[in-house]
């Protein structure tokens, strides 16, 4: 009788362990970019040169030594970009002074309209630690290539245009290694621990 109970308990325990491993596997897979996704280059291998919203030249080497949170967008974007910037501002506020060591950058995919002054007007509405970057089309294209980011100009019926672009938020460690991507529709609660991991 006792033996039988031990077997049942043992089986139950084994099933529990398997379920735990499967769950852990699923969790880890969810937090990892898809296997076929091409990962961004380490910051140290990037080769762009852009201008920030204060008019200062920024190169990838300027980013080394600090963890980085970067994403691509444009200021004429009514939904995705302000939503992302609001989320980032919220994360930075929650992290408080901890986030002061983080470089946070919005790289414009619309340099035609997003001059440094235009970017300054825009990022001024969000957390002051967010830096706007723009530059000549060729340099923006180079940055997109280094990040493995896609963007595309889409003409609108009224002669205006909008931009399709990769919407994720990229995280890099202080030594420039790529850490992870926070997807646009990802649950916000998972983002903070991942940003913290990049910081530490």
């Amino acid at each position, binding site marked *: 009788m006792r033996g039988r109970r031990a077997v049942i308990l043992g089986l139950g325990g084994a099933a529990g362990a398997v379920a735990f491993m499967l769950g852990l596997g699923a969790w880890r897979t969810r937090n990892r970019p898809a296997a076929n*996704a091409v990962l961004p280059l380490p910051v140290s291998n990037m080769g762009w040169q852009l201008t920030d919203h204060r008019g200062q030249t920024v190169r990838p080497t300027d980013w080394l030594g600090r963890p980085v949170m970067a994403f691509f967008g444009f*200021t004429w974007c009514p939904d995705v970009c302000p939503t992302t910037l609001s989320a980032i501002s919220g994360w930075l506020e929650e992290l408080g002074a901890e986030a002061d060591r983080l470089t946070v950058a919005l790289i414009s995919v619309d340099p035609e309209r997003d001059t440094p002054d235009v970017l300054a007007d*825009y990022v001024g*509405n969000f957390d002051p630690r967010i830096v706007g970057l723009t530059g000549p089309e060729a340099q923006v294209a180079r940055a997109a290539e280094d990040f493995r980011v896609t963007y595309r100009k889409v003409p609108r019926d*009224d002669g205006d245009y909008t931009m399709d672009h*990769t919407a994720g938020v990229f995280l890099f460690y202080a030594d420039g290694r790529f850490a992870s*991507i926070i997807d646009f529709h990802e649950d916000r609660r998972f983002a903070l621990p991942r940003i913290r991991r990049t910081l530490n």
Partner: protein
Amino acid sequence: MKHLILTTALVLSAPAAFACETVTVGDLTIQHAWSKASIGVDRPAVFYVEITNSGSSDDALVGISTPAAGMPMLHETVVTDGIASMPHAMSVPVPAGQTVQLAPGGYHGMLMGLTAALKEGDRFPVTLTFEKAGAVTANVDVLPLRSEGPDCADAGQ
């Protein structure tokens, strides 16, 4: 038409918490209509709202109009393989018994050709036209650009 909309807006401007008014048309309840402050008039602004269909037949939001913008349209943010695009939506389904949100990152009204910059604290009317229920005007409250939505006691998000 514009006059009628403005009159309707005045009638509807009963005191209420910011972006927390409720208007109804047929079986539809419209609430939490809000927008974000704009920088100037050149960039498109947004319109977000929550629609509850308590009836037994499906309806759909087929258009929006407002004196605040020359070309208001319905759009949907779609993320495919990590790339966000914003196709025009011909209509937004409002199925029977369900609540549909025009909210950041999903369906939204895009207000192009703003007649004036939208400032935090402004209020403007938007007329929503539904396939079956017809038209109804809601007051839209302008929240800060970095706002993530109205803070209403009944906002069950």
